[in-house]
C-alpha cells in the first residue's frame, strides 16, 4: 500500500490490479491480469492489437468495471480523490476543436480538483514545459496534429499526477517532439510518478521503461525488468570482436559454429558449451578481445517470438467485440 511521505507524495506501490477479468459478449478479453506499478517506475505495457491492453487500462482507471478482480490506486479502490491524482492520455484522444486552449486546460484541471485560481498558472507552466506558449491563444482546431497531441499531453500532466497512464503517446509525433515527450516522462519518473506506458514500439520500451508487462489474448505472458527479460531470453550465441581471425575457435570445446557477423564473429555454442569456457580458452590462446558478449535478443524479437509461439499475429489480433471499441 502506498504510504505518504513528508513531501506529500506516495511511496511504495501506488497502483495494484489483481485478477482482472473482463468479458464482452462471449469473449474473455482480459483474463486474470494482475499488475503493480511502483512509485517512480515506468512500466511498459505491450501486446498485439486486441490483446486487451486498453481494456485493462480502462479497468485500472475505473472507466470499465471489471467482471472480476480489484484495482487499488493509492491504497484503495478508485474514488474521486484518487481520480484527481491520475493523468491519462488515451490512444483515442481529442479535444474540443472549437475552443481556445486556456478554457480547455482550465476545465481539465478543475476536473482534477485544481482550484479555479490555481488552474491558469499550472496550465501556463505545462504549456511552457512543452513549448506551446506561443500557441496559447489559438483554438485547438487551428493546431497541427502533433501540436494537438502535445497539448493533450500538457492537459494530462498539468495537475502533477502521481499516476500517469500513456497509451501510444508518441504516435503521429515528429522526432523532436518525441524526444521532448520522452524527456518529460523521464523527469516525471524522477519526480516519483508511477507511469504505465502502453505502446507497440519496443525501442521506446527499452529506452524508457524499468519493467515490461506483455499481454497476449488477454493474459499476461511476460512480466519483469527489461534487462532481466532480455537476459532470460538470451540466446546460446556469443558476439566477439578481436584483431585476429577466429576460425580455429571451431576446435574449442563447446563451440558448434563460428560465422562472420558485422565487424566480428558470432559463435554458436553446443549443448555442452559455456560462455565462460570460450572466454577462458580465447584468453589462454592470447587473443586480444575488443568485444565479448552473449547475444541478447531485442524486446521486439522477444515480443514476436512469444506472439508467434502463441499462434497470434503481432500486427493485428483484434477480437470481434472489441472491434466496436477502441481496444488495443
Amino acid at each position: 500500500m502506498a504510504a505518504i511521505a513528508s513531501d506529500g507524495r506516495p511511496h511504495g506501490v501506488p497502483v495494484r490490479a489483481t485478477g482482472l477479468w473482463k468479458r464482452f459478449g462471449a469473449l474473455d478479453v482480459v483474463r486474470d491480469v494482475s499488475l503493480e506499478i511502483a512509485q517512480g517506475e515506468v512500466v511498459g505495457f505491450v501486446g498485439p492489437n486486441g490483446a486487451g491492453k486498453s481494456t485493462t487500462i480502462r479497468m485500472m482507471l475505473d472507466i470499465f468495471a471489471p467482471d472480476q478482480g480489484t484495482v487499488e490506486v493509492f491504497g484503495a479502490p478508485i474514488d474521486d480523490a484518487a481520480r484527481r491524482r491520475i493523468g491519462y492520455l488515451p490512444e483515442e484522444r481529442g479535444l474540443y476543436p472549437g475552443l481556445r486552449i486556456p478554457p480547455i486546460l482550465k476545465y481539465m484541471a478543475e476536473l482534477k480538483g485544481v482550484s479555479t485560481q490555481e488552474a491558469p498558472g499550472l496550465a501556463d507552466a505545462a504549456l511552457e514545459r512543452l513549448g506551446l506558449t506561443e500557441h496559447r491563444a489559438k483554438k485547438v482546431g487551428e493546431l497541427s496534429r502533433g501540436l494537438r497531441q502535445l497539448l493533450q499531453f500538457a492537459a494530462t500532466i498539468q495537475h502533477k499526477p502521481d499516476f500517469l497512464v500513456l497509451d501510444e503517446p508518441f504516435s503521429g509525433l515528429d522526432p523532436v517532439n518525441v524526444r521532448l515527450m520522452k524527456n518529460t516522462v523521464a523527469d516525471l519518473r524522477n519526480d516519483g510518478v508511477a507511469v504505465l506506458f502502453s505502446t507497440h514500439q519496443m525501442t521506446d520500451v527499452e529506452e524508457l521503461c524499468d519493467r515490461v508487462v506483455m499481454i497476449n489474448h488477454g493474459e499476461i505472458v511476460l512480466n519483469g525488468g527489461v534487462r532481466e527479460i532480455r537476459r532470460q531470453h538470451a540466446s546460446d550465441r556469443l558476439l566477439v570482436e578481436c584483431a585476429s581471425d577466429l576460425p580455429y575457435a571451431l576446435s574449442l570445446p563447446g563451440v558448434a559454429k563460428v560465422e562472420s557477423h558485422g565487424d566480428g564473429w558470432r559463435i554458436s555454442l553446443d549443448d555442452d558449451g559455456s560462455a565462460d569456457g570460450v572466454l577462458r580458452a580465447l584468453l589462454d590462446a592470447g587473443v586480444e578481445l575488443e568485444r565479448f558478449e552473449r547475444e541478447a535478443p531485442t524486446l521486439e524479437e522477444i515480443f514476436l517470438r512469444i506472439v508467434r509461439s502463441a499462434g497470434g499475429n503481432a500486427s493485428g489480433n483484434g477480437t470481434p467485440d472489441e472491434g466496436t471499441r477502441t481496444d488495443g
Partner: protein
Amino acid sequence: MGSVRIVTRHEFRTAVTRPSYLILTAAVPVLVALAVAGFAIFTLVTREDAEAETASSTESSAQAPRLGYVDLTDGPALFGAHQDQPGAVFVPVSDRDAGVAALMDEQIDALFVFPPDYAKTGRVVRVRIADDGGVFGPDGPSYSGTLRGFVLSNLFADDVPAGLAERLRIPYTLVTEEVRPDGAAEESAGFDIGRAAFFAVAGISLLFSVFFSSGYVLNALVEEKENRVMEVLLSSVKPDALLLGKFFGLGAAGLLQMAAWLGAVGAGVLVLGLIVDVPTDLLTMPGVGDIAIAAGYFLFGYALFASLMAAVGAVTTSLREANQISAIVIVPAFIPVWLNFILFTEPEGKVARVLTFIPVTAPVTGFIRLAIDAMGPLETVAALLVLGASASGALWLAMRLFRAYLLMYGKRPTLKEMARSVVSG
C-alpha cells in the same frame, strides 16, 4: 457533486458563448422589437390620419355617423322619438329620392327606408350607391346593431318600465353557473385571455426547447464521442456525473434562452399596451399557480426529451446518425399540434385525456388544454406526476445506455444488445 458542478458550469459557458446560441437567443427579442416598432410606426401614422379626419369631422359637426331614414310606414310615424343612438345619429329624410341625393352628397353615411308594409313584414330597405367596391367591397359598416337599437327604442321604449329601456338594446349577457356535486354553485370565470396567452406562449416555448435545449445535449454527447474527448473526461469524472453535468448545464442554457424569449414577448406586449389599447386581460400577470404549472411542465418536459436525446446520443456513433434517429423522439412531441382541431373542439374528450398522460405528448397537450381552461387541478397534478416519473425513468435509461456505450465507436448496438445493457446495468 463537485464534478457535476464543474461539468455543469463548463457546459453552460460553452453553450451560451457559441455564436449559434447567441444568434438564436437574440433572434426572438430582435423580431419582437422589430414587430413592436413596426406596429408603433403604423399606429402612429394611422392615428395621425384618424386625428386629422376627426378634426375635419368636428369642423363639420359630424363626429358620429349620420344614418338617414325614410319612414313610409302606414299610419302615424313609428320612428323619430329616439334618433340619438350609441355611436350614430339617425336623420329623418322626407322621401327616398331626397335620401339618395343626401347619400350621394355624403350628407349621410347610410340610408334606410321603412316601407309602408313594414309593420306586417318587418322589411327594411338599405339603399346603397352602386360602386365597383375595390378589393374590400363597397359596403362599409352594416350598422345592423345600431339599426336594431333604433327600431326597438322607437317601437317599444315608451312602453316598457323605466330602467328596462336598455334591455331593448342589449337584451341579455349570458354567464354560466357551475353546480358542484355537493350542491354548491359558483359562477364560471369565463375565458381568461391572459391565461390562455400565457400557456400558449409557454407551449410554443416548450416546443422550441424540444428542438434546441434537448438537441444541445444530443450534440454535446455525440460531439465528444466524435472528437474522442469522452475517454479523457471519463478518467476524471464518473459517467453519471458527466451526463448529469451536461443535463443541468445545457438545460440551464436552454432555460436562459426560453426566459429571454418569454421576457421579450412579455416586454413586447407591455410596450404594445402603451401604444394601443390592448385588452387589459392580456396585460394581467399570470398567477403563481399558473407559473408553477408551466414551470413543472417545462422542467419535466425538458428532462424527458433531454434524457431521451441523451439515450440516442449514447447509442449512436456520429452526429448525422444521431440527428436522424432523434426524429423518433421529436416527432411525437408534435402529435398534439397535428391533432389540435380535436383538442380544441373536444378538450375534455378521450383523445385529449389520453394524450395528456402519454409522456412524449403530455407537455404540449397540457399547455393547449390549460390555455383553454380544460384541465382541472386534479388532472393537472396527476399529469405532472406521470410526466415527472417518466422523465426520471428516461434519465435512468439514458444513464444505463451511456455507461454501456460511452466508448463505442463505429457500430451501433442492436435493440437486443441495448435491452441487455439496460437490464444488466
